[in-house]
């Protein structure tokens, strides 16, 4: 068996996400590749939520259309998810939950019902039923109980030895209880002999960790799903790291504080979602005009407006590229994977300081909230480039300091308050090389050109899009962000059928576009695959390369693309909303 997908389903407040996370960690420690996706509604308790875990022996980059096993903690969970279970699949539910089998029989879905609640009660607390369920799942798919026990030891440590012991007892008993079922269970994952340790991490945590590795020590933000956990995790970093986090009164203050900190010389960031980003647009112009670097994370969710607050979307791309009145350089990058969340987490600061402009990192709910297994990040590979930044004492000898010097590449020398050799004004009004306000027409033209030249410099240094799959394929999928994973798997599925049916061109550096983009796309039959209504990347590409797509596959109901669905659309040549 190559990979198995399990959906843990119940009500908000039943601890699904933490159980799911624990299960992912156990699997990761057993050397499996895992992708865990939470699916919850914009409410705090009650209402069906689920957490879906896909486990495999090779990297898993998406959630499939159908699941192998449904863990149902409530009766209605079955009703709600039965149609997603593959024929011959399984439902695992505590014996105490009454299941209506009418949904299952016709598609010969087997039902396994160990008395998990009862078992948990015996050991003291029915909340431990989740622990038992995880042990049962381990037993079924055949990964070692020990992995579960280790994670229990780790996660319950702060609750005390007692809690660890009882949970482990429950796990052991539950694991034991389903011996026969496990024997009869058709899908086993082959366990690697000596497991290679992997990190199990969410996109937000990877990005936050990357930011710290990149020297970010100031973060100001206002809570907004799905960005909040970036601020929350950075707040949890021990004080010794000197990570200053400020929960502000609103997003305007969040962006402004980060810009103030960066102006003073710190590596500073903020993080929000689309609605909060709207409130940061004026600040974007402040940073653009005064050439202050700042990193702004927009973790996209379903829009417009409040929209679908806990669901995913890729609806902010054209907004991010054009946000702000007037014209000024900004950079827009978007991670495609959890590995890239970490990498862009630190790279964003290099770009911001190198080009002295705002950098917008576009992620989305799917990356932000999903937990993936990645190779342990290598902090040694992180580089810090502060661009043309001058620290006190490092000034080249000579005639004064011109902060906004008309540099050929547009990049002027940058210094910070406190530097006796560089006392200067900065203004959002148009200014001369020294920073003083002027309305002189000739100066205006040169200063605009100087600023805008930074965009050309950045374009020439931008990463070109990446081609995956056969160079010559009948169809070229174009994707960015979280659509990358399912597209990549769709390409593999399509090509597995023999011919070079499809390849994939995907983007990490979205604005400015690398000049190589046109050449890479030219002459291909392109299908855009985007988690939005209007194929925004496709529009951007046509705007700047003139190349139009042949069709597009869009999903905008807040749910994830499955590779199967993408592949079907390509096979059937049906390009429209999924």
């Amino acid at each position, binding site marked *: 068996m190559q990979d198995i997908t399990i959906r843990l389903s119940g009500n908000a407040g039943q601890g699904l996400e933490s159980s799911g996370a624990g299960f992912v960690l156990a699997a990761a420690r057993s050397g499996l590749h895992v992708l865990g996706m939470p699916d919850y509604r914009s409410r705090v308790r009650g209402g069906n939520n689920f957490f879906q875990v896909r486990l495999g022996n090779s990297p898993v980059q998406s959630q499939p259309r159908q699941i192998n096993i449904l863990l149902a903690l409530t009766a209605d969970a079955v009703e709600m998810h039965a149609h997603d279970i593959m024929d011959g699949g399984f439902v695992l539910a505590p014996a105490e939950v009454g299941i209506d089998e009418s949904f299952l029989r016709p598609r010969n879905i087997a039902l396994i019902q160990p008395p998990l609640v009862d078992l948990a009660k015996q050991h003291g607390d029915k909340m431990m039923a989740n622990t038992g369920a995880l042990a049962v799942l381990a037993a079924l798919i055949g990964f070692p109980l020990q992995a579960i026990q280790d994670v229990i030891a780790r996660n319950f440590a702060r609750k005390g030895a007692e809690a660890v012991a009882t949970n482990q007892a429950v796990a052991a008993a539950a694991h034991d209880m389903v011996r026969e079922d496990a024997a009869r269970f058709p899908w086993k994952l082959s366990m690697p002999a000596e497991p290679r340790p992997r990190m199990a991490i969410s996109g937000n945590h990877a990005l936050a960790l990357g930011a710290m590795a990149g020297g970010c020590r100031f973060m100001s933000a206002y809570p907004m799903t799905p960005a909040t956990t970036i601020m929350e995790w950075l707040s949890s970093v021990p004080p010794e790291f000197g990570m200053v986090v400020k929960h502000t009164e609103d997003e305007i*203050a969040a962006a*402004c504080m980060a810009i103030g*900190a*960066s*102006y003073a010389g710190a590596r500073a960031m903020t993080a929000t979602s689309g609605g909060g980003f709207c409130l940061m647009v004026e*600040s974007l112009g402040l940073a653009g005009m*005064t050439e202050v670097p700042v990193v702004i994370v927009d973790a996209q969710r379903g829009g417009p407006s409040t929209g679908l607050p806990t669901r995913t979307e890729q609806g902010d791309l054209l907004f991010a590229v054009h946000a702000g009145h007037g014209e000024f350089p900004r950079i827009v990058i978007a991670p495609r994977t959890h590995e890239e969340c970490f990498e862009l987490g630190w790279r964003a600061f290099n770009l911001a300081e190198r080009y002295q402009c705002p950098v917008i990192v576009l992620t989305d709910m799917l990356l932000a909230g999903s937990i993936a297994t990645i190779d*342990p990040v290598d*902090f040694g590979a992180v580089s810090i480039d502060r661009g043309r930044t001058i620290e006190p004492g490092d000034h080249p000898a000579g005639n004064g300091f011109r902060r906004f010097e008309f540099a050929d590449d547009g990049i002027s020398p940058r210094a910070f308050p406190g530097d006796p050799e560089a006392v200067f004004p900065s203004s*959002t009004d148009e200014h001369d090389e020294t920073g003083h306000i002027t309305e002189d027409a000739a100066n205006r033209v040169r200063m605009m050109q100087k600023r805008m030249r930074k965009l050309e410099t950045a374009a020439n240094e931008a990463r070109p899009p990446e081609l995956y799959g056969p160079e010559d394929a009948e169809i070229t999928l174009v994707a960015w962000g979280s659509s990358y994973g399912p597209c990549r798997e769709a390409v593999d599925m399509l090509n597995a059928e023999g011919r070079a049916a499809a390849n994939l061109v995907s983007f990490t550096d979205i604005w400015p576009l690398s000049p190589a983009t046109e050449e890479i796309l030219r002459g291909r039959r392109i299908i855009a695959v985007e988690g939005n209504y209007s194929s925004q990347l496709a529009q951007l590409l046509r705007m700047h390369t003139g190349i139009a797509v042949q069709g597009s596959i869009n999903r905008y109901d807040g749910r994830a693309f499955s590779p199967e669905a993408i592949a079907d659309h390509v096979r059937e040549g049906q390009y429209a909303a999924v």
Partner: protein
Amino acid sequence: MPPSDVSLDLFECEAENTWCPGCGDFAILRGLKLALVEAGIRPHEALLVSGIGCGSKLPDYMTINGFMTLHGRPLAIATGAKLANPKLHVFVVNGDGDSYGIGGNHFVHTCRRNPDLTHIVENNQIYGLTKGQYSPTSDRGFITTTSPDGSIEAAFNPIAIALAAHATFVARSFSGDPKHLAKMIVAGMNHRGYALIDVLQPCVTYNKINTYDWYRERIYRLEEEGHDTSDHDAAAARAQEWGDRIPIGIFFQTEAEHAYEEDVRALAAGSPVESAVRLHRNPQPEQYETLRQRFL
């Protein structure tokens, strides 16, 4: 060189001044320079953050680290700069519209947050740069292009709001009296935490009511009436005085509370600005191992 060597000319600058002749902002510019000289702070040691408006052009007219930003946002920007580098002496200077109108939310939250900022508000009770609309501090009945029948809103009382919002230093001064102004600014600088200095500033072009004379006839000094600056209730009562008698001076001050940045534990490890320099020169990847462990 010792502070005593700090002189006014250090802060002079040639940039063309665009204020109207007679504008109350000139005295505020002078008062600030006097205060810096008295406190012995050099241009590179101070950061002056402003917003947008006539008064907010002030940093362009002196030699100092000046950041002229967005209308209404200087307090937030200054707070970020202060948290990034607590060694800086950070000042905010902006107009009444900037500070109490569009910037009102940052104002109340900065009061209760108490970062060590010195905030000088050029309060001319009008929107000057946009040519004369009523501002939050305009009195009821004040006639402007956007209040042709006179303002029908109660005026925003910065002193009362600051007190209610838990500000630890609340003062008022008058740009007709640069010496008093300088004294207030020095006191605000020496205060540990956020210091509000609301300055009554005549706009000679658009505010024909609240003129130099109008203020002079009404102003009195709190210290001359034995006001106790540690008495919050007394301060609140004085804050309500407006009209025939207008108090200037320190309404309230307490150092019972820490400045915000004093309670930020992460700052003990060095400021974000220092970290940026240190990590650039010497990244020390191994330091993150404990964080990585959280995900293994």
